[in-house]
């Protein structure tokens, strides 16, 4: 197995001390090692947010784009070279807020991508505003009277949109989380991994303690079968005293790239473009 040191760029993370993002960084690195990825054939794609800084610390190829656009960039990369492992890294605001359109359509598209979302239920980098997953009533700088909307439910949305691997992790459950990421990477198709990541600076509600008290593993739920969509749907609604983590749902379905005849033989990136013959196109004009 490749060493964690090789996987690190050596840049010192600039997150707040105690931030849940450190744990996710750790999990991602271990998962890369466990999944046996080739660092030169792996691309991390992120947006903007505290969470999106993660690729700066992982020694793969990486693209740190703009806020909310992780999936389109990742899609472009995967379409261009489907031999690469492409992993999206986003915050809850990035993925479920400004990026919602790409999130929904990315899932029904079912490209072979892994989408890791740091769900701290807050906007960290912009110093603590409400996020789409912030709980109803939660007061922040942008909603000092408390959020009025009901939060988005990423698991339920993923189910409704046809995602083929849907999981939730918690950063303190490092090994469990690492395994989820490995499974997500190995899954052929779109994998969503929503991760509870306490923001120790701005989220006074959803703390380590909060999640620790509530999270339980779906593996431990008697008879839970992640192939059962109805059960998954049911579990997706559970929130409050007990919150499930683990694989909610997994299904094998053809991927988008499977249906592209153009890349059956080799990825687009490997096809020569030095002298494309367009005679036939010119002939059509007569």
């Amino acid at each position, binding site marked *: 197995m490749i060493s964690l040191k090789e996987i690190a760029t050596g840049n010192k993370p600039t997150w707040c001390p105690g931030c849940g993002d450190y744990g996710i960084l750790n999990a991602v690195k271990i998962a890369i090692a466990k999944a046996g990825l080739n660092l030169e054939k792996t691309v991390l794609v992120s947006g903007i947010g505290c969470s999106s800084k993660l690729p700066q610390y992982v020694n793969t190829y990486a693209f740190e784009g703009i806020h909310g656009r992780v999936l389109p960039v990742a899609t*472009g*990369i995967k*379409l261009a070279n489907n031999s690469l492992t492409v992993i999206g890294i986003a915050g809850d605001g990035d993925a479920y807020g400004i990026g919602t359109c790409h999130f929904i359509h990315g899932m029904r598209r079912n490209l072979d991508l892994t989408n890791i979302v740091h769900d701290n239920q807050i906007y960290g980098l912009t110093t603590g505003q409400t996020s789409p997953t912030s709980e109803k009533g939660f007061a922040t700088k942008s909603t000092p009277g408390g959020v009025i909307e009901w939060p988005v439910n990423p698991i339920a949305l993923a189910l409704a949109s046809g995602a083929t691997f849907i999981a939730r992790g918690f950063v303190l459950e490092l090994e469990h989380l690492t395994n989820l990421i490995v499974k997500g990477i190995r899954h052929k198709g779109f994998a969503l991994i929503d991760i509870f990541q306490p923001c120790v600076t701005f989220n006074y509600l959803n703390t380590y303690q909060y999640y620790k008290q509530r999270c339980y593993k779906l593996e431990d739920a008697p008879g839970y079968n992640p192939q059962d969509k109805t059960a998954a749907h049911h579990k997706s609604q559970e929130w409050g005293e007990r919150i499930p983590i683990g694989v909610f749902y997994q299904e094998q379905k053809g991927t988008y790239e499977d249906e592209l005849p153009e890349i059956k033989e080799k990825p*687009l990136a490997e096809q020569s473009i030095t002298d494309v013959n367009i005679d036939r196109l010119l002939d059509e004009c007569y």
Partner: protein
Amino acid sequence: MAILNQINILMGGEAGQGIIISSLTLAKTFSRGGLYTFVLNEYPKTIRGLHNWCSIRVNANPLTSHTHQIDLVIALNKDTVSLHQEELKTARGLIYDPKDLNPAELLKGYDQLKTYAVPLNRMIKSLKAESQMRNSITIGAALSLVKYDFGILADLLREMFQRKGDAIVQSNIDLAHTGYQHIQEHYPEDFGITIEKQTNAPPLMLLSGNEAAAMGAIRAGVKLLAAYPMTPTSSIIHYLAARQEKYNLVVKHTEDEIAAVNMAIGGNFAGVRSFACTSGGGFALMTEALGLAAQSETPLVLFVGQRPGPSTGQPTHTSQGDLRCLIHASQGEFPRIVIVPGDHADCFYETWQAFNLAERFQVPVLVLSDKYLGESYCCSPRFDTAKMKIDRGKLLPEAETEKLQDYRRYQITADGISPRTIPGQKGGRHIATSYEHDEKGFYADSFCGVTKMADKRAKKLAAIEASLPQPKEFGAKQADITIIAWGSTKGVILEALDLLAAEGIKVNYHQIVYIWPFPAKYVQAVLRSAPQIVTVENNQTAQLAGLIREHTGFEVKHRCLKYDGQPFYPREIHSFIKGITGHD
């Protein structure tokens, strides 16, 4: 006065009646006979029902634009007569169905006009054909009037419909022939215009600007088009989509334009030539990512077709109102290239070139066309692909990346361009980023580093300026009046030049193709030597004139502007110029 080998036909009907297809069929029938054709279509923003028309201009000599003078009108609805009374005033003939309209009622005092009644609806019924096939009858009738070789049309129809089976082929040919015969039988007198097949002429391609651009992209090795449909560039999506398998390229109709541009950036980052096409509203949604391409130094080509704004404006008409918008879109300051093709051949060659430039300079390249250029059809000599060499700039081959030590993606170099690697290559790992960064792509650590990196990017400008082709010059070397213009006005201006030359008025014309970085030195030299300067633009605020003043200090007094959604007619430029010279 008998006329040989030139005619301008207007075919009008309801949207959805296949006017465009029929006009192209008619045009191709002539271009296969070695005649130059130019087809302009004007249609409303509805799918069916409203009035829709095409002009099909034919000439034995090369044509570069449409024109106002119509010789023959084919009316497939009443509107074609009632809305085109102006054109009918000088036309020679009108083909119509007495069931649709009564010319005697609608047109009083149009003595020059010969009317050709063809019972389209009755013929369709008797041949048990679909009502849309009425158009074919009129094509036959038109060919008959100008005594053109019917066999060319028959061959063309055969090819067009062969996939649908012999019966369909035959019924189309029969319909056209019915029209042809009807004229011969009922109107034996000479129409006065004859079009002859040009036996020694080279074969002529007939294609639209968008088709030419799409071909240019394919020739450039594009493998990914990520786009969201928008008039007037949707046909680029359709063109490439239809050819995906043949050319091993992927066309992704995305969820929106933001996705489109970001996918194109992802594709280019991964080493595949990728682009997006759109119009102003979609481009607005792409502007944030334009800066991302610039900051991350990812090559990017965007193809934008203009239509009149602001906002939704007039989706199916033409404009040159977006130049400044493209030059300055996205926050911050960074080098970009804006190319404005002027004709169909430019669409091909310059779109192709855009991909080389994007990779050579690792900057966004914007190709700005418009509805008039993109959707009009014009004859071109066959494009010459022999000399088109792919240039991927400083993209390192794997043989070199393997040897890299401590690779710095944003290395500061003499020309500002850094060697590039793509995912999958050994030794080339790096992070590309939207943040200001150091040479390795890590967050910029000092204010001084920031200035250096901004200067590095800005340095590319010099390299770009040194390598871009200069504007093109047309017309008399020594002239009384010099036109400077950009984009789709080219063909119209060239024809206006001919009209003026025929009257002894000496005008020349400089066509700016690479408009940004602005070719200030070239323009400055033109200004110095020209006695009178005129700019011609399909917009309201004379954007080119503004650029000229910004970059040379010179204020253009004579600005020929039109912004009603229609392209110029050659005569409009002709009379604007004459107005200046006092000849008018």
